[in-house]
């Protein structure tokens, strides 16, 4: 029973990693771009959601907003920020230097954005972690002796639905075909009439959406946000993405869950301090033994070796 409860907990923990890992894997799979702003977008959504629900609009324009509205606005802010990042890390560079996907330039640029966004949030809201004023009711339910928090079930279902929709979008829709064409070869896609400058922002909108959702779900589930909340989740999500195979969406789902499981089990048997070694050791092992990850051969685009 205890083991089963641990399993449930690890799936719930993993669902946050899954959402962020899918955002990572999408950008790498299609644009071959390791976007280091993803953890900050996650954090941004959580912190903006908290600020709106607790303090209201900036400059005293309104009182505290109801928390569902605050979270909605927070997701929108994350998407907007993601589009700003797109403008400066990807589009501009591509216009000037040809196939920017071949260079480290967008990666370095996204490191710059990581510093900017994270420190602006610190300046605006301070460095302390804050209690998120979420739903008041006790939302823990008992199913067959297992304790599950309701928001966590909702987030897990929502995450799986999003990933399924995403996978369908990539397979079936016109935009999805365009994205897969860019993933294969941006130049050839351009020649064949794919409007790269119109389609690439779709990736960043999806990135912002996924990170924003993960951020607000995290805020509801754990009831706490901080400017540093992205660091830990971001690194675990990267680990999950690598384990699943770069560029593979369902691989990121599996990888995120595996990392969640590894973390819960490590804490259970070896204590909290060993989590970092276990998760990153797993990542290094996968990189050395099977760099394409568990599902790598199905991966889209240049992320595959």
């Amino acid at each position, binding site marked *: 029973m205890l083991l089963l409860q641990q399993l449930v907990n690890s799936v719930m923990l993993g669902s946050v990693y899954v959402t962020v890992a899918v955002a990572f894997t999408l950008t*790498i799979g299609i644009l*071959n771009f*390791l976007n280091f702003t993803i953890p900050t977008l996650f954090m941004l959504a959580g912190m903006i959601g908290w600020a709106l629900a607790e303090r209201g609009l900036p400059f005293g324009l309104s009182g505290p907003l109801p928390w569902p509205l605050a979270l909605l606005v927070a997701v929108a802010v994350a998407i907007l920020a993601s589009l700003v990042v797109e403008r*400066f*890390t990807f589009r*501009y*560079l591509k216009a*000037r*230097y040809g196939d920017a996907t071949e*260079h*480290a*330039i*967008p*990666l*370095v*640029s996204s*490191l*710059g*954005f*990581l*510093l*900017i966004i*994270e*420190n*602006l949030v*610190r*300046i605006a809201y301070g460095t302390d972690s804050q209690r998120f004023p979420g739903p008041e009711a006790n939302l823990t339910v008992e199913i067959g002796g297992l304790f599950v928090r309701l928001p966590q079930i909702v987030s897990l279902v929502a995450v799986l639905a999003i990933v399924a929709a995403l996978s369908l979008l990539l397979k079936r829709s016109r935009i999805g075909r365009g994205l897969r064409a860019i993933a294969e070869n941006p130049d050839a896609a351009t020649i064949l009439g794919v409007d790269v400058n119109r389609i690439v922002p779709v990736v960043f909108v999806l990135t912002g959406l996924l990170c924003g959702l993960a951020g607000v779900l995290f805020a509801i589930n754990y009831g706490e946000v901080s400017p540093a909340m992205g*660091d830990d989740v971001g*690194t675990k999500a*990267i*680990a999950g993405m*690598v384990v699943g195979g*770069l560029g593979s969406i369902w691989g990121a789902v599996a990888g995120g869950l595996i990392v969640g499981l590894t973390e819960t089990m490590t804490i259970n048997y070896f204590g909290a*301090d*060993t*989590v*970092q*070694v276990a998760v*990153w*050791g797993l*990542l*290094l092992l996968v*990189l*050395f033994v099977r*760099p394409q990850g568990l599902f790598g051969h199905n991966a889209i685009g240049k*992320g595959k*070796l």
Partner: protein
Amino acid sequence: MGGYWSGILSILAINVIFAYGIFLPVATGQLNLGGAGFQALGAYVAAYLSYNYDWPVGATLPLAILVAGVVGFLVAFPILRLRGVYLVLGTFAFAEVVAGLILNSETLGGAMGLPVPAFVDYGVPIVLAALVTLFVFFLMSTRFGLVMRAVHDDEVVSDLMGVDIRGVKVAAFAIGAGLCGLAGGLYAHTFTYVEIQAFNALVSINVLLFVLLGGTQTAFGPLFGAAFFTLLPEALRILLPDLQQAVASLFGIKGEVRAPDDSWRFVILGLVTVLMMVFRPEGLVTRPLTEKLRPRRRARLAGGEVAA
């Protein structure tokens, strides 16, 4: 000289050495985002020997270089099989594993860290930084440096020309790791205390940014990048309050303004990074620029052409 300025000189020297440690692999086309891991190795070797066995600095630093260099050599083989994004992730993961292992090691003090009895003033780091700079300039002028550039520019062609690509990459990575270890050892002896939180991912990111923004084509790049980005925050620390006061008085705000947040320095570093990537992604100091700045050599080259 006050303690403030001698401290900055020490940090500057350490950062220059650290930047050269990352520059060597980057100059062969490998982005190393695990700098903090190698620096932590060097720092903890020096701290452990100094704390437990009372070794002098002259003995701890060579061992710090050796340990970081050997570990770099050993991980280079599996890690350099990876390329592009995978290599970045692999080096990043390496640093996290090192940090995790140190955090869990009781002999190394765990989360508490280790005190370092032996203190060095700014003289030692400065001299060593100068030596390291000369060493890297020498290295880049040798055949090995030429081969490094060739591997960076086109791996396939270098391979066809008979260059031992893997050997060059492993050597550059291992020497670089050794230099990171030296930077770590100096860090330990300068701050006389090591704790693993000081060697986090942000440190790896910052030093990689120093190198890339300075420019990776010549050995001037890291020197310039490290100096600029070490001194910029200090300059901002002095200038920002005045600047803020000026802006405040411009808008008619009277009286003392709250001192600006320390985080502004990182915002500015981030902004500089983004703008650099847009306008000059090859870094501030490039090969054509250094050629332009050496008029005598240019004159000689021009004269040679006339004679021919």
